[in-house]
């Protein structure tokens, strides 16, 4: 069973521990550098990439601006296509619905397509409590599940593991392989082992649980984007399919999907197109699951929608480009964020979904950034993460001040501790100096409300001390 993030320490504490783990840092540096290069190459092929980003952002904004109408339409189309539509206010309601569907068929085992939302609601653990086993079928999810580990990346939850570690986990935990002694750390061999391990499960599974990358309101069509074919297996072979879909996944029309099918694969795996994309509309007679349930989930999304600055986070298509480009993420990894949504998007999405001033761990996340702006640059739907971070910092400060028990100083301490972790090496300090200039610019533009209420934000000098020292040879020139 996968562990959970409950009781995670605050970001600076977790980050410091992660920084001390050199294996983790080298795994991450290697993986994120690889994916950054791939992304840059395929994005450069598209002449009008910027136009595509603008269009993607505009379509999502339009969808959110009339979200109620689109949801009602989506529900009507799905129902007309033979699906059962359920609504869930929060994680518990969603998990209960999924468990009920399994129970009414006497099913005690489900196969799962990788989905962020089912991790968000802790579905596997909730099903386990009801005596229902959930089998993750995505390779990286499988690595996490078999290793009793936590996901650390949106796209590749086991990004913190290298091939040698994966081999070790498979040797220890993977059952039913015909010749386990032939396992090696060759990625092709490891992928082959996953195929063998899950084949029987796919062929006999009676129920699958998925999320959806997009939900087309106009047609009632759900879309899953994947690579391995485990998604297709889950969406096609079982009798019963339950899809948990965040209400922000809506796109208005079929034609709107075009833009996202161009933006997502290039931003996420750095491919022109991912190997498999499945779309389905309720029940297709004689093809695939004949019982289709769609759970429309809120779980804090309407809270985020009400946040004037933060609502743009609901445009997120979970590509993970912002994680791969983030200097903080690259150094501390995903676990330090204490959530299934790590990295820059996690630093804003968690407080937006859960609210600030409730949980110290969540409140520490908006400080997990140097505000360098790399995340905004790469985001396919142009989410201005630095601006949202600055606004959330102000909200955190406000919330703590309102509590009147010395909240403000404590949050400053949190921020400073985070800085300490980031600045530990000379290279990081060099980066941080560069970012500081960008950062105060952004903060000044957006206006860090509560913070600047009591003090002025110092302007970072145009040239850092170290740059000046280098240029002038220690002040002698």
């Amino acid at each position, binding site marked *: 069973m996968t562990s959970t993030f409950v009781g995670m320490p605050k970001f600076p504490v977790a980050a410091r521990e992660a920084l001390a783990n050199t294996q983790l840092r080298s795994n991450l540096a290697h993986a994120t550098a690889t994916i950054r290069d791939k992304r840059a190459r395929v994005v450069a092929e598209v002449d009008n990439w910027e136009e595509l980003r603008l269009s993607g952002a505009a379509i999502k904004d339009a969808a959110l601006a009339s979200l109620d109408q689109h949801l009602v339409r989506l529900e009507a189309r799905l129902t007309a296509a033979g699906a059962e539509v359920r609504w869930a206010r929060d994680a518990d309601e969603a998990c209960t619905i999924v468990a009920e569907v399994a129970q009414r068929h006497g099913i005690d085992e489900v196969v799962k397509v990788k989905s962020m939302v089912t991790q968000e609601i802790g579905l596997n653990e909730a099903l386990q409590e009801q005596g229902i086993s959930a089998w993750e079928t995505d390779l990286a999810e499988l690595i996490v599940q078999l290793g009793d580990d936590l996901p650390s990346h949106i796209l590749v939850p086991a990004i913190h593991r290298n091939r040698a570690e994966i081999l070790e986990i498979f040797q220890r935990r993977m059952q039913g392989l015909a010749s386990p002694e032939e396992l090696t750390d060759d990625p092709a061999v490891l*992928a082959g082992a996953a195929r063998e391990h899950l084949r029987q499960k*796919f062929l006999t599974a009676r129920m699958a649980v998925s999320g959806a990358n997009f939900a087309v309101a106009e047609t009632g069509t759900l879309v899953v984007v994947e*690579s391995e074919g485990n998604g297709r*297996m889950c969406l*096609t072979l079982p009798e019963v399919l339950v899809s948990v879909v965040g209400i922000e996944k809506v796109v208005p029309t079929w034609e709107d999907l*075009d833009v996202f*099918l161009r933006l997502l694969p290039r931003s996420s795996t750095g491919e022109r197109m991912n190997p498999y994309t499945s779309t389905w509309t309720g029940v297709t007679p004689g093809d695939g699951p004949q019982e289709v349930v769609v759970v429309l989930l809120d779980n804090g999304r309407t809270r985020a929608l009400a946040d004037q600055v933060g609502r743009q986070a609901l445009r997120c298509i979970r590509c993970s480009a912002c994680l791969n480009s983030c200097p903080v993420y690259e150094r501390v990894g995903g676990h330090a964020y204490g959530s299934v949504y790590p990295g820059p998007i996690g630093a804003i999405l968690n407080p937006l979904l859960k609210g600030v001033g409730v949980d110290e761990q969540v409140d520490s996340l908006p400080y997990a950034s140097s505000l360098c702006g790399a995340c905004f640059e790469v985001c396919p739907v142009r989410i201005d993460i630095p601006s949202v971070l600055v606004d959330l910092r102000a909200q955190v400060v406000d919330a703590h001040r309102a509590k009147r028990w010395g909240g403000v100083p404590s949050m400053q301490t949190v921020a400073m501790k985070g800085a300490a972790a980031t600045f530990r090496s000379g290279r990081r300090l060099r980066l941080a100096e560069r970012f500081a200039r960008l950062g105060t610019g952004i903060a000044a533009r957006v206006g860090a409300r509560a913070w600047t209420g009591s003090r002025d934000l110092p302007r970072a000098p145009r040239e850092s001390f170290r740059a000046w020292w280098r240029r002038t040879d220690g002040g002698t020139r």
Partner: protein
Amino acid sequence: MSARDEILDRVRAALGAVSTSSTTFGHPAGSSPDDVVALFAERVADYQATVVRCPPDELEAALRDALPAGRIVVPDALSVSVPHAVTDDRLTPFELDACAAVVTDCAVGIAETGTIVLDHGPGQGRRAITLVPDVHICIVRADQVVADVPDAMPRLAPAVRQGRPLTWISGPSATSDIELSRVEGVHGPRTLVVLLVG
């Protein structure tokens, strides 16, 4: 209050607090290569799929060469005849697993991304038959190939509006989950052969 009504109420309340600007947006054009069919062949091959280009009268020979030994499954109304093939008649997953290959037509080919789209109409069969067998041989006709994703959407819209599922295929099954390098061959067909006709 039902969860449905409460969520819709929350959405309306959240939107009420925000000025809803009416954003207008266009769909940016896709790429427009000189030779769409040649680009398609090149891009499909980029994914480690096998591409065989042949004139219509050589299709059957090309198909014979591509077929592996073993049981072959085909959907109803396939555009070519495959000797000794079994026509899918609600074969179970295990029966499909015992098939060496499947041969199908397709709905659309997309050059820019090297993608084949099945709309599971005649000649393409239900989704399971192109999923479980380890080899997928797909026949793509030159006039089915479009330049880029935006050109494919209107061609696929009628099938979607009829409620049919789609499967977009770009190369054989693959994963990037181990150190983010792409490895071909996981759960879907490990071999994809595209017979490009015309």
